[in-house]
């Protein structure tokens, strides 16, 4: 068994990231991010004025929402190679990926729904917008646990020739710390922790982007070192 398949899946990540970057810069809601202090009428007016942009990005994101899953799947495969007593962290990792991705899809749905019929009652448009932000910014719990599971499986790897270098695990733990503030966006409507604040929005997205890039290179290296070794996950 060679690693060609894993490498192919891995290389689907860069185009996916490119599409996400495109979606990010094309999304009217993000430039600049809508303030949580807007009244329902202001939110409704915003959605009425930007139907095309929001719908376009929502459709695009519906299509590409799961396109980073192959990257995570390869991560899971590499995790399962580490010499621990069980694949318990791999399983937790896979479930976390599913949950986190669904949360992103729900966020996208809510924004798309608000733009689909922009003359809806402003209360409802505002509710959909709030819900979208909640699902987009707040549910950091799964990606935190996901990264911790990855880090733990690297730390506990008892191979003489570890699959991932130690610093990848340290890096994953650090991302956990940087992602955590996102959850507090539920509590604040202004300041650094609000959903448009530097800690919840900018730091979180930057961390995520750096994380994907670093993981991509780390995985590439791990897969290339795998050689003919069979993977035990099932």
């Amino acid at each position, binding site marked *: 068994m060679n690693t060609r398949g894993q490498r192919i899946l891995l290389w689907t990540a860069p185009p996916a990231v490119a599409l996400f970057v495109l979606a990010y810069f094309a999304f009217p809601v993000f430039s600049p991010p809508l303030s949580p202090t807007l009244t329902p009428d202001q939110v409704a007016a915003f959605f009425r004025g930007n139907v095309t942009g929001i719908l376009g990005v929502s459709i695009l994101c519906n299509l590409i929402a799961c396109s980073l899953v192959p990257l995570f799947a390869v991560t899971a495969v590499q995790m399962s190679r580490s010499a621990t007593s069980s694949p318990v962290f791999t399983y*937790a990792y896979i*479930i976390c990926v599913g949950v986190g991705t669904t949360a992103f899809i729900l966020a996208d749905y809510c924004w798309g729904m608000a733009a689909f019929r922009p003359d809806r009652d402003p209360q409802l448009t505002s509710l959909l917008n709030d819900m979208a932000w909640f699902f987009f910014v707040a549910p950091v719990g799964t990606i935190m646990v996901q990264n911790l599971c990855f880090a733990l499986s690297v730390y506990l790897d008892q191979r003489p020739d570890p699959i991932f270098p130690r610093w990848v695990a340290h890096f994953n733990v650090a991302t956990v710390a940087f992602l955590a503030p996102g959850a507090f966006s*539920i509590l604040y409507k202004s300041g650094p922790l609000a959903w448009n604040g530097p800690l919840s929005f900018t730091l979180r997205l930057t961390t995520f982007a750096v994380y994907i890039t670093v993981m991509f290179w780390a995985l590439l290296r791990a897969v290339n070192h795998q050689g003919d070794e069979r993977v035990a996950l099932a």
Partner: protein
Amino acid sequence: MSGGVATVPRSGSEPAKSWRTNRKLDQWIAFWSVPFFFNLFGLVFVPLSWMMPPRSPSSPTPRIVDFMHSHNLLIACVILTLAYGLAPVSNACYLMQVKRMSVSPAFRYSMMVGAMTGAIVGMLFPMFCFGLGAFRPGYSTAVLTMLYDFGYLAFIGSLGCFCVMWMAFGLAIILDENNILPKWLGYYTIWQYVTELMAAPVWIVKSGPFAWNGLMTFWFAMILYVSWQFIVYFCIFKAIKNQPESEFA
């Protein structure tokens, strides 16, 4: 503060070399995160936000509005969004034992998908319904009561994703020939499935024993569920403990 933070010190601080010698360290870390998670879950739901025991579906609108505006709901929401990632870890503990059984991998794959969908519809979504009401006090009462209903129904209403999980888990235990978990636990797990059936009437009535805060649909199912949870963790504890070293690859 979060589940993440709680598990980090154990690994991040590179525990003593004696820990290193324990080959099952990964399983023990995952296992001990579970009681932590459930205690947190209980604390957040009961004394912090008083979301549980469930409020009446027929309580008067002003009381619903009052409740939906309580600030503690937001704090509860924050804690849970930080910690809900630990639910997959607890499910991974079951999955690990199912992997050791003689049954087909299809069982643990079914459970895995059940766990994924369950975490979204049974935890994250209802949580956000409650959080949204408190987040923006300007919502009309119609929106608030809808969020209230949506939150409770998604949380308590019967969920097929858990049905599939318990079915796969119960069947795997019963069919297993390696005796990883006791057979009676498999039969006990069938009642877990039944508790989901029991919860079906909450969609129909708004008061009495079959409402979402009812004696039959909530309290009775809760008694079955909580005792099952304790027993299953005790059994998993023994299963991890009894796993022979020779099984490790």
